[in-house]
């Protein structure tokens, strides 16, 4: 039977290389795969494109990636209260693509769902429409928003079975469940790995077809 469980975070990030696009789940600390944050640092990769809702806020989160200067560009909705990111932003050493949060997650969804984009009313008449194609549907103006893809999507789940089915905990689901559809390689950090059959099929949010690697946070 399929078994996607890997030993630890280092194994979960195997194959990541300079210049890769990486999705990191989480809204603040909830849903952030912290073991992956550190494992990617340990790999010594650089020039990453980071797709994430936030840009870190404490000393012990995505701030570490900015401190280590391994991010070339961030696609993000709310990079506020992020000291290390802000320093590099002011110095001009990191590029920011600022995206409305709902547009960010829907672009990720489009990437995972095989869509060529979608039409959004969000940003019409603002700087968020600059440089984008406008399309009128039934008299209302929309912006064409394009999908986001990534070489790796890393998210935090609650439980996973050995097949790779995943549940989430409370508001830690946030962007994780959508990002888990959109990475070429999807790795999930979970609190605990369980046997196939232990998860209620009605409770599984990310079906195993999307998941390539799972590791338990406690195994770090």
């Amino acid at each position, binding site marked *: 039977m399929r078994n996607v469980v890997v030993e630890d975070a280092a194994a979960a990030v195997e194959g990541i290389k300079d210049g890769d696009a990486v999705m990191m789940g989480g809204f603040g600390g909830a849903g952030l795969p912290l073991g992956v944050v550190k494992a990617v640092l340990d790999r010594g990769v650089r020039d990453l494109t980071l797709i994430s809702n936030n840009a870190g806020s404490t000393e012990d989160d995505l701030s570490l990636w900015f401190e280590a200067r391994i991010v070339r560009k961030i696609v993000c909705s709310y990079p506020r209260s992020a000291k290390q990111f802000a320093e590099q932003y002011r110095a001009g050493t990191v590029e920011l693509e600022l995206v409305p949060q709902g547009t960010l997650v829907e672009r990720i969804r489009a990437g995972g769902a095989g869509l060529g984009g979608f039409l959004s009313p969000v940003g019409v008449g603002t700087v*968020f429409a600059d440089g984008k194609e406008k399309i009128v549907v039934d008299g209302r103006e929309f912006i064409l928003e394009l999908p986001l893809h990534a070489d790796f999507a890393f998210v935090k789940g609650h439980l996973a079975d050995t097949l790779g089915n995943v549940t989430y905990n409370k508001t830690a689901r946030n962007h994780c469940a959508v990002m888990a559809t959109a990475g070429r390689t999807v790795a999930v950090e979970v609190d605990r790995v369980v046997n196939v059959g232990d998860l209620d099929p009605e409770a599984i949010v990310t079906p195993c077809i999307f998941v390539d690697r799972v590791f338990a946070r406690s195994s770090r």
Partner: protein
Amino acid sequence: MIPLSRDALARMVALHLPEEGFVNLGIGAPTHVADYLPAGSGVVLHSENGILNVGPKPAAGEEDWDLINAGKMPISLRTGGSYFDSSLSFAMMRGGHLDVAVLGAFQVSKDGDLANWTTGDNGSPPGIGGAIDLAVGAKSIWVMMDHTTKDGRSRIVERCGYPLTARRVVTRIFTNLAIIDVAEGGLAVRALLDGLTVEALRDRTEAPLHLAGEFQTIRQDGSVA
């Protein structure tokens, strides 16, 4: 005349929310509206990070950092609450399923244009978050803010000078001096702080104000009569 305190402004907004309405309270001052919801109002609070039926802050020591609000602070879940991913959450916001979104603002124009994400300062990185999705998608967009800036300039303006969040979306403005509706014919004063004259309000407001018949009086505690 003493402008309403932040607490009184939050109470005033809370007293106006529709019973059993689905409501999103933006980060910052709007979050405190939750503290003044009348018991039994039935209002269901939504938070953009994937939760319906947000409950109060948990007791010290009971915090669960997987259960937070849009301001990334610990909350609780009320009976009947639910969790969902960000895509579904923003479908609620963008798709017109929320009755009211309460947002802070730097400026609102006479046409209901909203500027609330950046003052364009160089230096700090800008953040847009989910305010823009709310501004476009909720059925009613209410703004709560001080009527003027710290140096006395009107925040209710002819045209917003700051970068826009969305055009022609604000339906009602709650300030520490007045409640003003953004209507077809322009800005209509609904309620005025006790002790403040219409002329004094006009002196503090750049955009023209209309009087739509009778207006109510705002008491110092934020209640309206």
